């Protein structure tokens, strides 16, 4: 037997087997074609080839079922009485592939209506169209939404043609509206048309929630009524998603129960593979390809994008201006690639809208908006001048949009930002650096043979103590102190080894939240190191850096600056001017000088690093992100708001999509930006971003993760400003508990957490607990010699407010006066808290009827209030009132 004859025999056998398979499938004995092929491996390929050809030959079983269903349904309808005779037929309104629409008048109810009449009777190839016609009536009647014209009656006319009646919509279709926009008539504008598209989105959202995809959205299928009502018409090609589809999964129980959906397997084939329906210019690639399985809600998203394209470009996608190519040509173009870039077709269109359109019309279904709701949110954002995600995402863009909407207010609020960001982000960065330093130390220690064993033992002991989950913070610190004493008295250690152990202990203490003791250990270490001969400049550098770090924590910025400068000198002497840790030291110096309010010094270091980054093309790195952020903070402090925003943009651009969403740096940055947004008064945006950070951190990190807690604090601040004090209180209690568990009661972070909670409690009029917390916080910081630090001033202010709320005049006055004195010491205008305390002081004296002191305080307040500021007039008026009272 030759190969050819063997092949022909296989095909002949395959043809016979395939006929048997169709018989079996019909009798319900075998439905899975591939399983059938598996039973005949010798000619499986031939079976598949012939089966594919047969599928193309049709009519297939689905056509037959459609035909029979259509006949059955029509027969049922014919058997029922209908109101066809009550209708007075008017003019033809429109005509489509499946039927014609005529105006009718209901003589009995005396109302104007519309009737859609099927063009065909159900026979042969028409069965599909009849089936769709009937389904259109069924689907439409089950979609109960103001944006969908209700169907009144489905029936059969005396000639046996199906019809349904519906409300008649007077108005214009969107295609006509687009023409009016182009000609500038009747007050139609692009934003007004976008409002119509928003209404279409709402209607589609509803339909999608019921498992129905329209599939033939186009401007002529959207009617705008005379009173602004918007209707999505012509659901004749609508697809009821099968229950296995994702959308239906999400919306289970809400699906439209049409004849089609009752037999989902039938439905899957009711629109056969390769079936192409819709209008080419608005048809998604998957629809144009006839890829029915891929058609879902995102197919309608594409069509929405195509309508937006037409609105902006003034012509349909894939058609040039003034061009009306045949549908076949349009579809060929649609299949060949994307339409002409909208940016070029509509050069004056808002880039945000262009971006939205491009995303909605993405050729890959996965790249489109996942739902019409997302698209609607974007269009809404555009209309409200908020950030459009497709155009640019990220808090920077949010901030820029917000500034565009609120220019004056933004300028007055930006000054607050620096404090928020320094307070929130700076600490998180320091803590991250601490963790890395510990790891570095461990690595270095293990490489030095002469002291390796001793150091390893003590270092391990220290770390075990610090990280033993069974110990609370106080116990940790006690154990470390004990260990510290043992090491100090251990005469067996050489000075070099002792210095190394002291440094390790310092790191452990710092991580344990005891910066004061850590600073002491580092200082001791440093004293030993400078006496060593030869000098160990590397170790000196590291210890100086670590010491300065903890001094930053203690808000001892001058000491920190001095030690960082020494560290930098040490780096220079070691010939490591621009390698780590010198780069980090310079970066820390920027933060320190920002803390010292020495903006010139901060700028000098930033410029120095910036120049080095320029020369070494180093911006595109984590250090670049940090430096851009610092440039932004400096600019903000110098009131160069535009520069600040630019730098934040740079920093976010560097991050781009290089870092995963749950990366530490990204979370830190996003947390900082959330705090920035809060400072900008963008409470809702801040809340959203903070929630996002929280969601990504929770479950991945421990409950006391710095990003999580910082984000919770930011979120709480936003909630307080949004008047949701109870929610804020719950979050702040959680933060306080986590901080206490981590650091014990005497850590600056705990004091801050107490002060935050006290602020929320004051809003909730729980003054007693607020006072207790504020007092604990104040005492704690004073014990840590944090007097005059930003946190100290703030907790004093909160305590003063608590005293004032409880009528404790003298304690309140004392606290406010202390705040004023401390902020004065930090330079004029150093803290809005000082100004706030003066205001509070005035209020306390007024409430107590101590008018002379009230007058004295208001005069002080006026002296620090810029005459052009918004608050000056109010304070001036208050001052006049107090003066009059004093005179009386």
């Amino acid at each position, binding site marked *: 037997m030759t190969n050819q004859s063997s092949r022909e025999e296989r095909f002949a056998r395959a043809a016979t087997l395939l006929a048997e398979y169709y018989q079996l499938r019909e009798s319900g004995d075998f439905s899975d074609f591939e399983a059938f092929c598996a039973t005949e491996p010798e000619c499986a390929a031939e079976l598949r*080839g012939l089966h594919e*050809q047969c599928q193309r*030959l049709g*009519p297939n079983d689905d056509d037959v079922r459609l035909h029979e269903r259509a006949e059955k349904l029509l027969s049922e309808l014919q058997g029922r009485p209908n109101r066809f005779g009550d209708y007075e037929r008017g003019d033809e309104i429109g005509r489509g*592939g499946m039927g014609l629409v005529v105006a009718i008048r209901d003589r009995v109810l005396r109302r104007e209506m519309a009737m859609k009449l099927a063009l065909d009777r159900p026979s*042969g190839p028409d069965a599909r169209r009849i089936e769709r016609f009937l389904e259109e009536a069924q689907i439409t009647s089950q979609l109960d939404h103001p944006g969908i014209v209700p169907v009144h009656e489905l029936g059969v006319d005396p000639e046996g043609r199906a019809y349904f009646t519906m409300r008649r919509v007077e108005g214009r279709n969107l295609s006509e509206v687009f023409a009016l926009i182009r000609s500038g008539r009747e007050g139609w504008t692009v934003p007004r048309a976008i409002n119509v598209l928003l209404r279409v989105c709402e209607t589609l959202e509803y339909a999608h929630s019921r498992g129905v995809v329209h599939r033939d959205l186009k401007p002529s299928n959207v009617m705008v009524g005379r009173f602004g009502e918007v209707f999505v018409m012509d659901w004749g090609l609508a697809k009821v998603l099968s229950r296995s589809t994702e959308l239906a999964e999400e919306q289970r129980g809400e699906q439209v129960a049409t004849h089609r959906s009752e037999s989902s397997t039938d439905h899957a084939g009711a629109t056969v593979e390769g079936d*192409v*329906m819709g209008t*080419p210019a608005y048809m998604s690639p998957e629809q144009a390809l006839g890829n029915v399985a891929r058609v879902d809600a995102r197919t309608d998203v594409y069509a929405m994008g195509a309508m937006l394209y037409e609105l902006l470009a003034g012509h349909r996608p894939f058609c040039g201006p003034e061009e009306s190519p045949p*549908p076949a040509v349009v579809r060929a173009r649609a299949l060949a690639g994307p339409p002409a870039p909208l940016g070029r077709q509509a050069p004056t269109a808002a880039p945000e809208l262009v971006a939205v359109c491009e995303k909605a019309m993405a050729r890959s279904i996965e790249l489109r908006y996942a739902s019409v709701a997302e698209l609607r949110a974007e269009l809404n954002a555009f209309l409200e001048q908020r950030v459009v995600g497709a155009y640019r995402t990220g808090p920077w863009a949010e901030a820029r949009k917000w500034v565009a909407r609120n220019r004056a207010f933004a300028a007055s609020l930006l000054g607050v930002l620096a404090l928020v960001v320094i307070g929130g982000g700076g600490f998180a960065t320091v803590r991250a650096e601490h963790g890395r330093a510990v790891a570095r130390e461990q690595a270095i220690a293990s490489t030095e043979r002469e002291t390796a064993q001793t150091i390893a033992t003590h270092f391990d002991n220290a770390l075990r103590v610090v990280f033993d989950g069974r110990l609370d913070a106080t116990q940790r610190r006690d154990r470390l102190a004990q260990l510290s004493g043992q090491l100090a008295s251990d005469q067996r250690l050489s000075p070099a080894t002792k210095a190394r152990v002291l440094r390790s202990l310092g790191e452990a203490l710092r991580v344990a939240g005891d910066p004061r003791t850590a600073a002491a250990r580092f200082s001791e270490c440093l004293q030993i190191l400078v006496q060593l001969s030869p000098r160990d400049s590397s170790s000196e550098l590291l210890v100086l850096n670590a010491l300065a770090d903890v001094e930053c924590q203690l808000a001892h910025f001058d000491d920190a600056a001095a030690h960082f400068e020494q560290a930098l000198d040490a780096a220079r002497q070691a010939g490591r001017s621009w390698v780590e840790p010198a780069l980090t030291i310079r970066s820390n110096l920027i933060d320190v000088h920002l803390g010292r309010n020495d903006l010139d010094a901060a700028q000098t270091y930033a410029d120095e690093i910036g120049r080095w980054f320029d020369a070494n093309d180093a911006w595109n790195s984590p250090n670049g992100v940090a430096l851009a952020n610092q440039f932004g903070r400096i600019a903000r402090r110098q009131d160069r708001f535009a520069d600040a925003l630019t730098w934040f943009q740079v920093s976010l651009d560097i991050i781009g999509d290089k870092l995963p969403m749950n990366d530490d740096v990204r979370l830190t940055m996003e947390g900082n930006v959330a705090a920035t947004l809060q400072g900008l008064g963008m409470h809702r945006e801040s809340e959203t971003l903070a929630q996002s950070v929280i969601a990504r951190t929770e479950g991945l990190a421990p409950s006391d993760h710095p990003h999580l807690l910082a984000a919770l604090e930011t979120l709480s601040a936003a909630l307080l400003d949004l008047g949701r004090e109870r929610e804020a209180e719950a979050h702040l209690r959680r933060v306080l508990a986590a901080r206490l568990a981590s650091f014990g009661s005497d850590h600056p972070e705990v004091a801050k957490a107490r002060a935050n909670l006290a602020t929320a409690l004051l809003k909730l009029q729980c003054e007693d607990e607020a006072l207790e917390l504020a007092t604990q916080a104040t005492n704690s910081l004073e014990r840590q010699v944090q007097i005059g630090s930003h946190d100290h001033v703030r907790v004093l202010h909160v305590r003063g407010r608590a005293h004032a709320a409880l009528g404790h005049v003298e304690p309140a006055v004392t606290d406010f006066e202390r705040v004023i004195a401390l902020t004065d010491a930090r330079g004029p205008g150093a803290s809005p808290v000082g100004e706030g305390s003066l205001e509070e002081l005035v209020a306390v004296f007024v409430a107590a009827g101590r008018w002379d002191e009230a007058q004295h305080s208001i005069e002080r307040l006026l002296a620090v209030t810029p005459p052009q500021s918004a608050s000056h007039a109010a304070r001036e008026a208050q001052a006049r009132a107090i003066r009059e009272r004093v005179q009386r």
Partner: protein
Amino acid sequence: MPENADQTVELLQRWHANDSTALAKLLENHLPLLRDYVRSRLHPLTQRLSRELDASDVVQTTAVQLLQYTPKFRPRDGAQFQALLRTFVENALRNELRAPRHRRRDGATSQFSAHVVDMRGSSDSSGRPDRAAEKAEDRALAWLALQFLEDDDDRELVELVAVDECGWAEVGARFNLAPDAARMRYKRVLPRLANYMRRLREGGVDELLAARHRMSSS
């Protein structure tokens, strides 16, 4: 053989390029031979045809049909084209004897319906040129393949469904079958039809013609 092979192929190309003189020339070249064949080999069939429909009409109509489909199936030479014509004319005569065309549905074409092997749906749906071309090719091949179905009933059944677009009830009534049974018969025929289409696509027309000739002779 009426003339050399190149002339038939060339004439076909010219006719399909809208040169009407080429059609006349083709018919002039092939119809006399075809009529001779019908007279000599198919005399029993033509004698049984009704007076209203002359055999020569069937011959001419069938020839034109084949000519319409040949763009999708280009004959190798004049001899092959003539052989195809003979097969199709014989089929057409048999069909006329079984169910004269004028008794079938009004307005039905003598071609495979577009809906059968074409994209279905709205009027806007037929625009993709490559798909449309593919479908047209399928349609032409299906019509050619149909001519090789051995069983007259099978051939008529497929024509009723695919060409005349009859519903299953109507098809079933023609063969005294229930609609479902008619549909099942159609489904059973389809794999053979698909196999013939494949063979035509792969250039196996000579083998099909030979098999058909053997069957007719027997």
